[in-house]
């Protein structure tokens, strides 16, 4: 007679084998669920790195503009000016470093390059725009620059202005030979960049009613009113030369910043003391090495901080 106690053993062993197999499957499925869950927690760190680089660029440009505009120490050489810049830059990076550390990022930004520039300035409002020697047509910047900006002109006496073709004209060109011209005549400010001539008027009225007015080329305003399309050297590459034509037909002040060291700008005899056109040390721009790191990301890049270069 069969032993009834033995008949279920095969089924029991089979059941045990299947149970072990299903437990293994559960472990595999568990790892899949874990992987998919982790995937949904991923954070994008690129936006923080990119925004930090943009912040450093903007902060450095602000320091450059401040140091150039508010030189209370009136440095005569670049050493003091660069010290002022380094102090400001250290403040900017110090604030960024503390802010980023609180979020788990480490930054180490450094100044890599500094572009020494010069202010080309005339502050004597009773003088025309000739050079120190009184030469009629002259070049404040002689084909050796790599950029210029911040042009503004103050016409002190409108009665000195003359109509074209003898109107006072500033023309600039880049290394490719592209040119941009600004002419100031009685009652008109015109721009010729190879396209349609742009005319700026004081709110549509005649500029000749004003005895004096500002032409802030970089800001795009004439007599305090916006002139759409007035943009210093628009669509040109880095400005290489700046020329004055008919400088005797205007009286007032002017200034602009050029990317060339003081002493290398213009020709000998063009500049002198503050009674006529003169030069002053300035910082044209800088290159900053941005270093942004966190546990899973390392991002290092050089950022050019030149005010107005990227302002469209």
């Amino acid at each position, binding site marked *: 007679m069969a032993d009834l106690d033995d008949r279920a053993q095969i089924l029991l062993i089979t059941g045990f084998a299947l149970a072990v197999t299903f437990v293994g499957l559960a472990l595999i499925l568990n790892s899949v669920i874990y992987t*998919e869950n982790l995937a949904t927690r991923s954070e994008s760190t690129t936006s923080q790195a990119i925004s930090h680089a943009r912040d450093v660029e903007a902060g450095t440009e602000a320091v450059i503009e401040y140091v150039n505009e508010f030189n209370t120490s009136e440095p005569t050489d670049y050493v003091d000016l660069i010290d002022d810049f380094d102090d400001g830059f250290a403040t900017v990076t110090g604030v960024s470093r503390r802010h980023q550390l609180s979020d788990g990022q480490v930054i180490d930004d450094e100044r890599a390059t500094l572009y020494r520039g010069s202010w080309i300035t005339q502050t004597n409002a009773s003088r025309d725009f000739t050079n120190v020697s009184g030469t009629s047509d002259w070049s404040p910047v002689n084909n050796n620059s790599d950029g210029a900006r911040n042009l503004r002109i103050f016409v002190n006496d409108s009665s000195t202005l003359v109509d074209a073709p003898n109107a006072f004209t500033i023309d600039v060109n880049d290394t490719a030979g592209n040119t941009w011209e600004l002419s100031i005549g009685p009652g008109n400010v015109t721009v010729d960049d190879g396209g349609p001539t742009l005319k700026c008027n004081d709110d549509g009225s005649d500029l000749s009613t004003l005895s004096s007015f500002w032409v802030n080329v970089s800001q795009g305003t004439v007599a305090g009113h916006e002139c759409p399309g007035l943009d210093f050297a628009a669509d040109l590459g880095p400005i290489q030369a700046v020329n004055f034509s008919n400088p005797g037909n205007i009286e007032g002040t002017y200034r602009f910043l050029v990317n060339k060291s003081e002493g290398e700008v213009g020709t000998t005899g063009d500049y002198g003391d503050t009674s006529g056109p003169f030069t002053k040390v300035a910082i044209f721009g800088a290159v900053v090495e941005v270093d942004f790191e966190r546990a899973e990301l390392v*991002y290092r890049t050089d950022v050019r901080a030149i005010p107005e270069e990227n302002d469209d």
Partner: protein
Amino acid sequence: MTEDRGQAITFEYTMGIGIAVVLVTGLLIAGGGFISDQRSSAGRAELQVIGQQIAADVEAADRLIASTKDADPTVQIRRRLPRDVAGGHYQIELVEAADPYISLASTDPDLTVSVDFVNHTAVRESSIAGGPVLIEYTSGGRLTIEPGDPS
């Protein structure tokens, strides 16, 4: 009566064993097949997830490179990935083509998964084993994947 039962018992025992064997074999074959299918499905899902994570990191590196005018920035992105998928090792390959993509292949189970991504920066053909990965922008101006730091 006892003589009849002796013959019936043998036949019954044989029948019982035969039926049990058929039943057990059928259960094991069905269960094994089910396990194998589920393992392949789980492995494919996990490779898809891993591939999407790597693609996201490659696109993130691409964005960082595109955001700067510097011709030679340093960009490194690390990602800790599992070394095994569904109990088997796998290979990650960054395929250099007109339309680059990431290919993940495991041998056990035998699976291959492709994941597309959008890029502006060129990529360099590279292949590594599954595990920690490093996506790097090389001095040759290309994105590549390399084995990451195991620590």
